[in-house]
């Protein structure tokens, strides 16, 4: 055993010289964080990580499929070089994000990354990537802290196309308080960081605007009988129920609401996570009258229906999670950035500077994405963050088409 111990100890003391990022000149490009050289005929690598297994599978798969569609619409090429999209499963956990990011980063040819789906994964994954000079574009990671002005240095290479929780909460409170004039709400989250954070932001804003939160409830993501908790809420007589929980839970909630005395006519407001055709099937007839928050822009209303069609042809079913459009936009931002900074040499090889790419991504202005015009702030918030409240009007699963079902009710 002795030699065993000493070997391990000795080995552990070997400090591996981790190649630090340094300025590099390759071909026509000089970059302070290094340059990726892509030989003629080789593909440009873009990574993706999202929840492909575990409880948030639907979200992650829809996001990555959205990104694939963006690549397809873009022609599959940047400056004549084919783009290869390497995806890894990040689940919806911190360790999943960490491992997936490490695996992506292991390939030094990687230029940029889209994802992940969850803030917990982004919190760990984004710095891993950026420490190697790889920028990442978050899809479903909505926690405000990720793009706060005082964020740690590891997030200086992190952008996101989805607006953060605070903005969406602010808009929804505005609608409920100012437009509808409702005074009391009940909230439900499912214990996931995303829904809990959104609910807390909503509650804070709502109280600040003079409203009253009469019930603040939580369920488990695999709960199927929500009638007891709805009964509790009914006892508090809220004017509205706010809940950003995911498709299954929202489906149960809407269907079972009618069975609980006193809640039949209480309106429900949901989050972007269920902005998909899937919610219609999950909730059945009860979906009629259900409102959700979603992007509000012209582009979105015009292009999303055909996106859904293309998605269905390509992957066999319409997007199952609400963030597919943001997956599309994240990929679009990455491709545009790559196109802007890539330089070819005389032999037809391509060079991309890492710092230059990062700067190009942050400099994105008025890029017509699927969710709206994308403009990135200095902190990395690129989301269009123009919201609307949408209302479902038809319970036929094939009727999903933003504009008619759900139709925009505000503004």
């Amino acid at each position, binding site marked *: *055993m002795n030699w*065993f*111990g000493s*070997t*391990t*100890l000795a*080995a*552990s003391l*070997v400090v*591996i010289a*981790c190649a630090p990022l340094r300025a590099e000149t390759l071909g026509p490009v000089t970059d302070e964080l290094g340059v990726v050289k892509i030989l003629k005929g*080789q*593909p440009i*690598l873009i990574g993706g990580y999202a929840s*492909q*297994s575990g409880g948030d*599978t639907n979200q*992650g*798969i829809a996001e*990555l499929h959205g990104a694939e569609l963006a690549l397809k619409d873009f022609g599959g090429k940047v400056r004549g070089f084919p783009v*290869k999209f*390497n*995806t*890894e*499963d990040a689940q*919806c*956990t*911190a*360790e999943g994000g*960490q*491992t*997936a990011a*490490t*695996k992506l*980063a*292991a*390939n030094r*040819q990687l230029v940029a990354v889209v994802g992940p789906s969850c803030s*917990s994964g982004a*919190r*760990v994954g984004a710095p891993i990537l950026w420490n190697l000079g790889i920028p990442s574009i978050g899809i479903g990671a909505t926690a405000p802290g990720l793009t706060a002005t005082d964020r740690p240095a590891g997030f200086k290479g992190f952008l996101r196309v989805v607006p953060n929780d605070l903005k969406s909460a602010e808009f929804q409170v505005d609608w409920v308080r100012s437009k509808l004039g409702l005074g009391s709400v009940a909230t439900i*989250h499912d*214990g*996931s*960081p995303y*829904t*809990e*954070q959104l609910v807390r932001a909503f509650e804070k804003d709502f109280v600040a605007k003079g409203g009253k939160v009469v019930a*603040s409830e*939580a369920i*488990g993501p695999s709960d199927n009988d929500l009638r007891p908790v709805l009964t509790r809420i009914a006892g508090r007589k809220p004017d509205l129920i706010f809940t950003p929980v995911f498709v299954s839970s929202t489906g149960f909630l809407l269907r079972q609401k009618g069975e609980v005395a006193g809640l039949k006519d209480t309106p429900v407001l949901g989050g972007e996570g269920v902005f998909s055709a899937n919610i219609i099937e999950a909730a059945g007839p009860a979906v009629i009258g259900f409102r959700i928050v979603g992007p509000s822009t012209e582009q979105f209303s015009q292009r999303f229906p055909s996106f859904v069609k293309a998605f269905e*042809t*390509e*992957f*066999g*079913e319409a997007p199952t999670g609400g963030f597919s459009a943001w997956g599309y936009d994240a990929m679009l931002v990455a491709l545009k950035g790559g196109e802007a900074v890539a330089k070819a040499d005389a032999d037809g090889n391509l060079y991309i500077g890492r710092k230059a790419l990062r700067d190009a991504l942050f400099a994105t202005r008025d890029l017509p994405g699927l969710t709206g015009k994308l403009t990135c702030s200095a902190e990395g918030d690129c989301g269009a963050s123009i919201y609307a409240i949408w209302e479902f009007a038809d319970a036929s699963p094939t009727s999903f088409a933003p504009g008619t079902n759900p139709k925009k009710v505000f503004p």
Partner: protein
Amino acid sequence: MSSFDIVTSSFRIHRRRGHAVAEAVRAGAFAGAAAIAFALVGAYLIMDRRFVVEDIITLAQTVVLLFVLGGGHAAARSAARDGATAATAIGFGALAGLVAGLLFAAAILLVAHVGLRSHLVAASPMLVRAVTFLGAPGSAVAAAVLVTAGTAAGSVGAAAAMLRADRRTAVLIGLAALLGAGLFRDVFAGLLHNLPGLAALEPMVFGVGGVTPVAAAVIAVGAAGLSLVLHHRRRPPIAASTRRRIEGVLLVVLLVLVPLVTDAFVAQVAMLVGLYVLMAMGLNIELGLAGLVDLGFVAFFAVGAYTMALACSSDPRAAVHLSFWLALPLATTIAAVAGLLFGLPVLRVRGDYLAMATLGLGEIVRVLVVSDAMKPYLGGSQGIIEIARPSLGGWTLDTPLQFYFLALILAALVGLVSWRLQHSRIGRAWLAIREDEDVAQALGIDLVAAKLLAYTVGAAFAGMAGAVFAALIGSVYPHSFQLAISINVLAILVIGGLGSLPGVVVGSLVLIGLPELLREFGEFRYLFYGIALVVTMHLKTEGLWPAVARQEATDA
């Protein structure tokens, strides 16, 4: 008896073998069905993006090919057993291949011309395009190509079956080496990149997605040749114990060296493997030695992680601010106490009832951690972030590799403690309890003390793993502590070999390392993982590295 003790019976079920033609059709049908399932589940399209040999054959094609080769092989073996000549046997192999090809082609035609997509989402035009090598997608020509290819592959598989045993092994090893090199491209590429003097080889051996054609030939032929040479070289027979020792040394060298010379990802995976080794050694004490089934094991992992978080984080909830080195023993101790508290009430619960009781306790811990009610203390669903990294005299551990070695040292330590415990008085007491609680009692073993000690020690190890985990990730979230972890650890023990310390290491390598390396197949990762569990158990029922006593018992 509980399920965790034994399933024993003297009878077996033998399938009656039919005529060679029937066997060939059967083998072909199996191969065809496997290929169809592989395609319709969507795995074909995903794996079709990855080349094994650059620009020549994709992973998906390889898998389907292997199914058919296997079918032809089985058919030929079956025919040969009935006394058929080599030519006839190859004919039966071709028949199997034909059947497989026909089935697959029929399925593809069905997908192309009948709308199955409302029920089967992967039955897409893309799938049809992917398996069309000649002619229009969905055409008779395309189908004929598939049938022909199937027949050819079946014959080849059959021909391989007719080879002498040593050559057959060599072919198999050559193919396996090639597949391994292609599948785990990133690991080997990283290895080449980091080994001094070999970096120049990397672009020659590996393309963007797989092995280059020349390197593929070299690898396959080289591995096959090596196998033949090794087989024919006369060597003195090695005693089983010596061989085990050599294997053990190899394992250790592998554990120390490979993460050193590959990339951060391999180190990260190795690190996770190390954590699971720690945990599995803990459960090994409870289940492997004392026979106490624990499906709530993740709770101790969580206790360790949260203790570390609350002791080392800058979060306002943190009770104290300790260094990692002080928090580690603290977390271990608190987890041990948790183990004791867990163990006390369930002392008299046995067998599967114990499994359920511990599962329940584990779930209770998980819900408590995520709950709004405990949020002021444990952070609720937002977890606890900004946990300080361990530092030693100004030197901070932050790369996965450094954490890996930390985990390795801890695992070595824990392994030593386990080993000593196993071979001490208490270890024998545990074994006695595992075999028969009542007899152990009659022998004067203090059941209460022995069981409680098992819970306490097991929990302490898991708590230690949790503490390192928290420091590695830098944050803890309740969603990291799912029931799946308990199940995973249990599977590691059984796959490795119950009660065997090297088995724990091998089991973790296989069950944690493999899914990590398959991470790129995202949604199919756990499908392959499940298949791997089933196949391993079929091939190695006692585990990959059974405990010595057990192996002797089965050999006898």
